[in-house]
């Protein structure tokens, strides 16, 4: 027997250095969380710039054209064709459109769920940390250069990327020499690497670090969802990297993957891009689906209805989600079989999604429901998500998509799913888990204001968008026909409500640190039903979570009757 290796000296930092050097999954989860909160506000502000351009009453195509023809000054707007607007010209507007989407997708919604998964998943499975703590830290810190690359690109020559978050060539190949688009590509690469590392970490953690007794059939649904989403991230994200690398190479190194004049094909890029970006919509919502099951059950004092149905539904959404990407590009012209196949496959996804919706309703049925803010957000999510999903059903039909594609109906649909769905989920999860994560309560009375403002705001913002689109308003336009004035004003009004509620939430979030520490493990008093590990340890949990194997018995999430 060899003598045991000498213990390496462990340096303990305090203050800022503690946060910078931490490899604790809980601290990293909080770093993710605050990054997401700040980026959400930045992305929301970008949306504000877009909305205020579209709110400017003179900015109708008719008025602009009349002014141009008459040689008089164009109406006042944030962005004007001639650059006389407050924020410059339509190029700036396209930059805003691009960056709003990029920030919201890559820095808000995707890392938002990773923040919670980082904090909660190890607790839920009774692990002391993630499988690769240092890799975990690397992943979160990668997001910072990524965000800095994208956001500072506003200030370089030629401005930020302005070809939409989809970066379709040939448009994304224009302006070669201006670094904005290249910085965007590198930003996506960093975010992608971060995402892949997180996925590997979650997979290994969930597979190998479960506490004794935490069998696959007892795994909490949030852990199941994180597991499936990690598979998507691991498989799909490299494909996105391939797509944006083609743009980078075509721009800078003379290749012609997407250059038609030298044998490339711009449509190739679209296929590869959407092969990632359709599954990405599940990255942006499935973890929330898992979490919301816990919230519905907790505040209804019941067990989740149809545990295995939920698991199988999540798994099948994951699987089928890889095979429907071309429904984003029906109008490029596809063979009939492809149109029909992608339509039917897309429709099929409605079935597992429906199973989830009905199972959530059945979870609540017969319960004794407490409407905490978290529960309000969960119910609000259910309502708005069903609307968003319904729009998706309609859009999957090829012939109808020919009318709706790239119109505001699509914009309304995916915002209904991403804001009415994902963002509502993130808020529900925050109100549910913030006491555990910070050790402080968020204000329930302020929370109710936040919820109602946001719920009404979301309906008021995105329902009129559907109407604009049905009537023929194209997306990504800085001016529009006079026919769309009313619906656009409604949307801008709704935006103001939504952003206001986000600001109130932000202030309350900061204020929560000044409230007294929570002294109980289970502030919601739910663990008699939930029996979930994260509520069986202090708020926040100590370093390394559990000294021993978690002390409570794992219950059978099916209630033993299934």
């Amino acid at each position, binding site marked *: 027997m060899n003598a045991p290796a000498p213990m390496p000296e462990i340096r303990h930092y305090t203050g800022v250095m503690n946060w910078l050097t931490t490899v604790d999954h809980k601290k990293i989860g909080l770093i993710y969380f605050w990054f997401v909160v700040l980026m959400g506000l930045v992305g929301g502000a970008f949306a504000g710039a877009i909305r205020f351009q579209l709110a400017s009453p003179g900015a109708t195509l008719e008025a602009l054209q009349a002014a*141009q023809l008459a040689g008089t000054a164009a109406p006042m707007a944030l962005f004007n064709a001639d650059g006389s607007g407050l924020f410059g010209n339509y190029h700036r507007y396209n930059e805003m459109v691009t960056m709003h989407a990029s920030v919201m997708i890559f820095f808000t919604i995707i890392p938002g769920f990773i923040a919670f998964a980082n904090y909660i998943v190890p607790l839920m499975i009774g692990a002391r940390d993630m499988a690769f703590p240092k890799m975990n830290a690397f992943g979160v810190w990668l997001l910072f250069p990524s965000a800095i690359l994208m956001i500072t690109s506003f200030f370089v020559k030629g401005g930020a990327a302005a070809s939409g978050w989809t970066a379709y060539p040939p448009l994304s190949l224009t302006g070669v020499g201006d670094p904005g688009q290249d910085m965007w590509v590198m930003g996506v690469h960093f975010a992608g690497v971060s995402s892949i590392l997180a996925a590997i970490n979650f997979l290994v953690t969930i597979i190998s670090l479960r506490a004794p007794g935490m069998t696959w059939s007892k795994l909490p649904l949030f852990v199941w969802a994180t597991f499936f989403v990690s598979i998507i991230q691991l498989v799909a994200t490299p494909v996105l990297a391939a797509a944006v690398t083609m743009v980078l190479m075509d721009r800078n190194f003379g290749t012609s993957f997407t250059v038609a004049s030298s044998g490339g094909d711009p449509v190739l890029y679209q296929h590869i891009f959407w092969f990632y970006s359709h599954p990405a919509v599940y990255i942006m919502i499935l973890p929330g689906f898992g979490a919301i099951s816990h919230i519905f059950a907790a505040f209804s004092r019941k067990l989740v209805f149809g545990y295995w149905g939920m698991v199988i539904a999540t798994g099948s959404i994951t699987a089928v989600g890889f095979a429907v990407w071309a429904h984003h590009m029906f109008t490029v012209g596809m*063979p009939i079989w492809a149109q029909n196949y992608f339509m*039917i496959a897309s429709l099929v996804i409605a079935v597992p999604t429906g199973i989830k919706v009905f199972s959530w309703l059945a979870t609540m049925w017969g319960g*004794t429901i407490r409407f905490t803010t978290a529960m309000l957000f969960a119910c609000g999510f259910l309502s708005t998500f069903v609307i968003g999903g319904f729009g998706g059903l309609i859009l999957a039909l090829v012939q109808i998509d020919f009318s709706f594609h790239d119109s505001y109906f699509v914009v309304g649909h995916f915002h209904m799913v991403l804001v009415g769905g994902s963002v509502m989920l993130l808020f529900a999860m925050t109100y549910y888990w913030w006491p555990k994560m910070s050790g402080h309560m968020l204000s329930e009375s302020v929370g109710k204001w936040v919820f109602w403002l946001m719920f009404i705001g979301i309906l008021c913002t995105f329902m009129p968008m559907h109407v604009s689109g049905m009537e023929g308003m194209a997306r990504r336009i*800085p001016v529009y026909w006079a026919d769309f004035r009313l619906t656009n004003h409604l949307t801008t009004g709704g935006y103001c409500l939504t952003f206001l509620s986000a600001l109130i939430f932000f202030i309350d979030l900061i204020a929560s640190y000044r409230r007294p520490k929570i002294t109980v493990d289970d502030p919601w008093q739910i663990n008699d039903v939930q029996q979930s590990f994260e509520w069986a340890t202090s708020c926040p949990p100590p370093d390394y979570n559990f000294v021993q194997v978690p002390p409570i018995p794992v219950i059978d999430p099916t209630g033993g009757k299934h």
Partner: protein
Amino acid sequence: MLRLLLALVVAAGCLAAAEPSGHDASGHAASVPATSAEVDRQVALFNPEVWKLDEKKQPILKLDDPFNTPASDVARRIASDFWFSLLIFSPFLILPQILLLVIIFKFRDRGDGRKAATFSGNHLLEVVWTAVPCVALVIVTVPSVQTIIWMEFPPDAARRDVVPVEVIGKQFSWKYRYMREDHAALIGLDVAGLQEPLVLPKDRIAVLNLTSEDVNHAWWIPAFGVKKDAIIGRHTNVWFTPDRVGTFKGQCAELCGNDHGRMIITAVITDAADYELWVEHLRYRNAALKIWSLVRDPLAKPEQVDAAVAKYLAVDSSVAAKNALRFWIATNHASLLRGKGQGPNKDQLKSESRRDRERIDGLLNLTARRTTQEAAP
């Protein structure tokens, strides 16, 4: 499949070419010199105002949408499919909302000591809410697949004649090539800001063949239910049968750069006679525009204009040629008036317009008489 359709389009084009040309239909316009009222009508028809707001700041030309005011067979079929699938799917929108409301009011914890139910599964329920949506999907999918197949192939294209048009997108305007008879391309040029409309006859199948010269664009007129990408290096096809006379608005639907939002599309649907007239006019367009630029050139001497008109007639002195020249001069004046004719310029431009048009009329009549005299003996 794409190639098949392409072949079909070419075949259809040839078929249209084989048919006797429709000059007879427009005989009234082509064989008699048009009155100036008739020229004005044509100018208003082929150079429509889509930009104006009325006194209440409402658009004078409303945007027709495919679901409420469809203007083609494709849009009508899409609309009926849309309402049908909305109907079939609507329970899945409404039922969860109703159940949610019921739950909120019925199962709220009122602190009366009611115990929560303990069930956590029900196989029958789960089978039902898996199977019922599947049935709904099948009900909607079947007609959808039929429509998709129908949309790919123009119906009985062999019997009805087809109007093939090549549509070329370019930042930030559209070019149209009307493919006719000898496939000699007649090019519609673009005038900055005021784009020329695509003119199509009512009740004939329009087959558009789209491509792009630079980035991706998408040609979209909502009222026709038609949206198709224009992609460099590719040709995409789409067909529809406009069935309502009028002017229709649309715009580019694929982000294509700074002025994407102003890359508008105008389509004018006319009866058969007016369509023939338009194609006839297009034939003389380039020659007529040369004369127009001389007319407006302050440095050009009057004799230069006379000579240009004489040269124009030497190539083709038919009534159609003369009418076309008068049409283009009047059209360009109308555009000029629309653009710069606000405020003090207005009266001056109006009188210039009247002067130029009369002058051209005079030149045409004069030269016309001389040509007939020479031809008489």
